[in-house]
């Protein structure tokens, strides 16, 4: 057995209980969240079901599992017992990546099967076969989200910073695209910003398939004029151009994230674990970049300038874990104040 197989087998076995607990929790939530809902009108009986929980679950798994897989590498004492093992860091990184992906796939599959079994008695009303492509697309979206979060979490030196990075990266794409749209005024870019949230691939697939899997189920509302149930036409499956372009973007982002994750993991400095997260993909770029993008997108009022300044200062205090201002901080602060002053004068 190769060293990779040995390490992977050990890691897989040691995380089996964790995976089982998560699967049981996910299963319980699926059973309570996905159920056939009978709606009766005067003349007909309709069956509907909301399967969007499966998408939400996939998003939760893709957020939580990177933290669980990699948090051990943010502890210096733990690295002392891991990084001398006869397994290269690259193999270790791959083992953790694959293990997390197996957990996501298996737990998602269990929940999809459970959801399908909950609804199978009403197969004549539902397009249950579409659960298969929905599962396939969900896994694609999961791989993208999971890869991005694995890369992002590896940039941090502490678990808390990793979680903050994940939160910032979740909105960073949206902020940047919105700012670009604001500057260029290109309609396509302006209209597509919402597809660049990290969770957008899964939310797009889920909302499309939720309408597609239940085609005979109409949306009901009480029309006050007729005092009866009105029926809205069923949805059809279709992704718009904004979504199609964003899928290509997320596909490339997923591949780049995997490569970035492997590169960063195999070169990470054990001595930095638990220290300040000074990665170029971390606070020192994210804080000014996101601050600037938000400023371009919505902030024009004077009070907003002050709020940005305070928010970015808080961000830098979190980053440096200190209230002490260094020379680069003073330079940036001075430039920012000068920028605001110019705004007041001109």
């Amino acid at each position: 057995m190769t060293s990779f197989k040995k390490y992977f087998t050990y890691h897989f076995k040691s995380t089996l209980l964790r995976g089982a607990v998560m699967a049981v929790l996910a299963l319980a939530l699926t059973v309570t969240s996905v159920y056939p809902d009978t709606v009766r009108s005067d003349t007909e009986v309709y069956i509907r079901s909301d399967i969007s929980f499966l998408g939400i679950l996939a998003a939760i798994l893709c957020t939580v599992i990177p933290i669980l897989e990699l948090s051990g590498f943010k502890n210096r004492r733990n690295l002392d017992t891991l990084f001398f093992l006869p397994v290269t860091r690259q193999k270790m990184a791959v083992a953790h990546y694959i293990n997390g992906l197996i957990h996501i796939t298996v737990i998602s599959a269990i929940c999809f099967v459970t959801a399908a079994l909950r609804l199978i008695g009403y197969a004549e009303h539902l397009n249950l076969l579409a659960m298969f492509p929905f599962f396939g697309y969900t896994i694609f979206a999961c791989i993208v989200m999971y890869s991005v979060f694995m890369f992002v979490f590896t940039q941090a030196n502490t678990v808390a910073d990793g979680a903050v990075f994940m939160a910032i990266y979740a909105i960073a794409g949206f902020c940047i695209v919105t700012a670009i749209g604001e500057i260029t005024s290109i309609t396509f870019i302006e209209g597509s910003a919402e597809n660049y949230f990290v969770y957008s691939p899964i939310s797009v697939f889920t909302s499309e398939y939720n309408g597609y899997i239940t085609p005979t189920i109409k949306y009901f509302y009480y029309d006050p004029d007729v005092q009866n149930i009105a029926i809205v036409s069923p949805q059809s499956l279709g992704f718009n151009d904004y979504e199609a372009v964003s899928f290509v973007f997320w596909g490339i982002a997923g591949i780049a994230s995997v490569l970035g994750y492997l590169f960063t993991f195999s070169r990470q400095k054990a001595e930095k674990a638990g220290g300040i997260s000074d990665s170029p993909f971390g606070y020192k770029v994210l804080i000014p970049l996101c601050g600037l993008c938000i400023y371009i997108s919505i902030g024009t009022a004077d009070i907003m300038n002050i709020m940005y300044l305070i928010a970015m200062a808080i961000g830098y205090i979190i980053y440096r874990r200190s209230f002490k201002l260094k020379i680069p901080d003073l330079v940036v602060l001075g430039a920012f104040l000068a920028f605001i002053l110019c705004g007041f004068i001109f």
Partner: protein
Amino acid sequence: MINIRDLSHCLGGTKILDNINLTIPDGTIMGLVGINGAGKSTLLRLMSGVYIPDEGTVCYDGASPADEKTRENIFFLPDDPYFTHQATIKSMLDMYKPLYGRLDMDVYRRLVSEFELDEKKPIRTFSKGMRRQAYIAIAIAIRPKYLLLDEAFDGLDPLARQKVKEELIRMVEDDGATVIISSHSLRELEDFCDRYAVIDRMTVSSSGDISEKVERYCKFMLAFADDIPENILDGLPVISMTRSGKFIKGVFEGDGHDIEERLRALAPTVMEQMPVDFEEAFINEVTRRKEK
């Protein structure tokens, strides 16, 4: 053989080790000594592959510790090993067992039994010394060719210390293993180490055979009938000196016989040569360097 060449490393922007050059022959037990913060633990982490050196190389029989084949022969026991809340000795062993083909279960069982450890009890419930014993049992059972121990005796009772020393000596004699052990207890190291390296001011200030190191120094106690002039030992290679009334105790660097002759010329009423231990030699060396 371990070869360390031009090794330098920074931690948080501060240089910790600078231009370390050290050769450790196979089949030796080497004591790594230095004051607090000298960089002993950093050096062991660089040697084990936990840290990637900023500059320089560490080679085990010509191979880098980055190579996993080389690492199969290395085991590093840090001063404060991590364990999860539910970890037991058995679960720790489960991690190492598949990765180290040479792990000897008989040795493991014997040591666990001799240290009277319960392998199914969570490690968190163990005392500091028991934790140390547990990890040492695993480290020795793995039978690595190169064993790197950081503050291995910290927290061990005298019986356990003796047991560990015997086991390490047995590893070296039976398997030809090389043990590098950092410790502040120099008297302990002197008991069973055959070589030493002093880390001082970011580099290896001296290294070699412990007995040769100790032989470079001699200690004399002298008593005089009259008051002792301030400059009585001027011209002699004095390393340290303590005065108490009409008594002088001095440590000298150089040949014992030659020093004895020169001291006799001072006409002391009593003169006695005393043994110098490794700790004194170390303190003298580090103090002298600080004074410079």
